[in-house]
């Protein structure tokens, strides 16, 4: 369970990223955050694992109160909170397996990381994660040689290797074409349901949010302006969030063909 209590984020340049956010996200929920760019979606997600430190309020993840000033505490928190990015953020020059093993960092002694000599059980966990996203046969290929959709799956496997309680996904399908976007979202949904991992996803495509999430949070100017189950996130409500009428760009269309 993740609890935001009166969370404010003020960036060093004075820009207010979040203002007075109060949220409660239950364990195992799949939450989609929608809003125009600059609305504070990324800031909200990055506050959870301390990549963006909040400036006031109280944030609890599970039974841990997040303290953005303590590096050691943040590392312990981050080991339980996985993150997926829009641009995949893989080290493209090294193998898929080594990318997935980055997810084992928190549980690996530094000297083992330095030598690249991982324990057998860590490798096994990495292989299992790759199996779960269906690309275990690519384990020893360079990450650069994979397609965008496959790279995002490697990123998901990297997160799974952390054995996380929470998955944060910042625009995970914004760089992908519509059929691939659906495939990756289906993977995320399946993993959330199979493993009961709390999943928070930022997105700007409404139809994806409606087809895969349990709950939709709408943001505007750093504030939460809508919070409710998918059924309540009608076009009228979202137009209120966006403060404009919906256009074709707000949907991704092209439902993926079944594999």
């Amino acid at each position, binding site marked *: 369970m993740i609890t935001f209590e009166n969370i404010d984020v003020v960036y060093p340049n004075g820009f207010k990223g979040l203002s007075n956010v109060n949220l409660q996200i239950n364990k195992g929920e799949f939450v989609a955050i929608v809003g125009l760019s600059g609305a504070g979606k990324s800031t909200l997600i990055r506050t959870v*694992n301390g*990549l963006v430190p909040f400036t006031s309020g109280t944030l609890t993840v599970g039974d841990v109160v997040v303290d953005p000033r303590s590096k050691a505490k943040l*590392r*312990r*928190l*981050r*080991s339980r*909170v*996985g*993150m997926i*990015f829009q*641009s*995949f*953020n*893989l*080290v493209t*020059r*090294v193998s898929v397996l*080594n990318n997935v093993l*980055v*997810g084992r*960092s*928190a549980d*690996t002694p*530094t000297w083992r*990381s*330095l030598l*690249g000599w991982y324990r057998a059980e860590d490798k096994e966990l990495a292989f299992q994660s790759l199996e779960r996203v269906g690309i275990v046969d690519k384990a020893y290929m360079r990450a650069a040689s994979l397609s965008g959709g496959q790279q995002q799956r490697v*990123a998901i496997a*990297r*997160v799974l290797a*952390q054995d996380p309680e929470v998955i*944060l996904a910042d625009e995970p399908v914004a760089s992908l074409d519509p059929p691939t976007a659906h495939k990756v979202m289906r993977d995320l949904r399946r993993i959330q349901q199979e493993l009961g991992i709390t999943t928070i996803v930022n997105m700007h495509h409404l139809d994806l949010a409606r087809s895969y999430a349990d709950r939709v949070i709408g943001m505007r100017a750093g504030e939460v302006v809508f919070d409710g189950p998918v059924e309540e996130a009608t076009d009228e409500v979202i137009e209120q969030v966006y403060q404009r009428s919906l256009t074709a760009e707000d949907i991704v269309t092209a439902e993926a063909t079944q594999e």
Partner: protein
Amino acid sequence: MVTTSTAERRAAPQAATVRPEPPRPSGLVYLGLAGLAVLAFIVFWVIQESGDVLLIPLGFVTLWAPLNPVIGLVVMLVALAVCFKARIGTMAAFGALAFIMMSYWAGATVGFTLLEIPERWSNVEPRLMAFLDPNWSYIWTVRDQWLITISMAVVATLVGCAIGLVLAMYASPVSSPNKGTSQTIKAVNSVIRSIPDVGWALLFVAFIGGTAHGLGPMAGILALLMFNIGIVAKLTSETIDAVNPGPVEAADASGATLTQRNRLAILPQVLPGFVSYGLYVFELNIRASAALGIVGVGGIGSAMMLQLNRFQFENVAAILIALIVVVLLVDMFSMYIRRKLL
């Protein structure tokens, strides 16, 4: 008519349209620039040290001209006239003028002239002849010195690159623990780089003794080592500055420590560059060790120095030619590796 021939399309606009001309630069500013040139000429005239005269022998008559300041003025005014004719902007013309003034001033200060070379020909000729007739067998005689040179280069490169990589990791703000560390390491690095390789060699020869004490190669390795650390740390830390920040953020987000994220997210990205810098300094080391011999560290440089002092120019020539060949070979080798790598 939809299709027109190329010729028609080319010919059509010529008749009616007039293309815009480049704007004419302000004549007043150009006049001011000419005034500046005259001012510079007066200054140069006043500060010139000798009343040298340039003699241009043409066979039947000898032309003469007061050396330098007048030539400088003529060059400046001609340059301005050309700029004006070509309608070049006043700022660019000022740049050209400044370039001529600076190079004139610098050249005049050190007395740069090519006129003395013919006068010294009697001195140059015997040495040149010796250089053109190298003593080939001597190359093999100094093989031990070659071995020492290459060993010095290998050791200095390996150790220097290792230390340079660690320093680079602490010097770049992307990979260092905090801003203070990176600023400090950067300052230390600047000091290391500000002393040239020959300077380091002189220092170490003074500290631990040179060839005379049988410690030449030792001082040489230490000098090359400092030289390499400076170069590798600088280049690598700038490469680290430019890495893709995405994987670094991902490693942070998965709870990696600083060392882990530097190893897992940054090192793979900078590795090709780092290896290429290593090969580059290896090449530099071979070349530098020839110059370092002059200040008394071991290797091929000391052999060359010895022969120079004995006026054995044919031996020096042999060493120089061998040096060129060795450097070329190392260069080809490192180019091959780099191509495989990138």
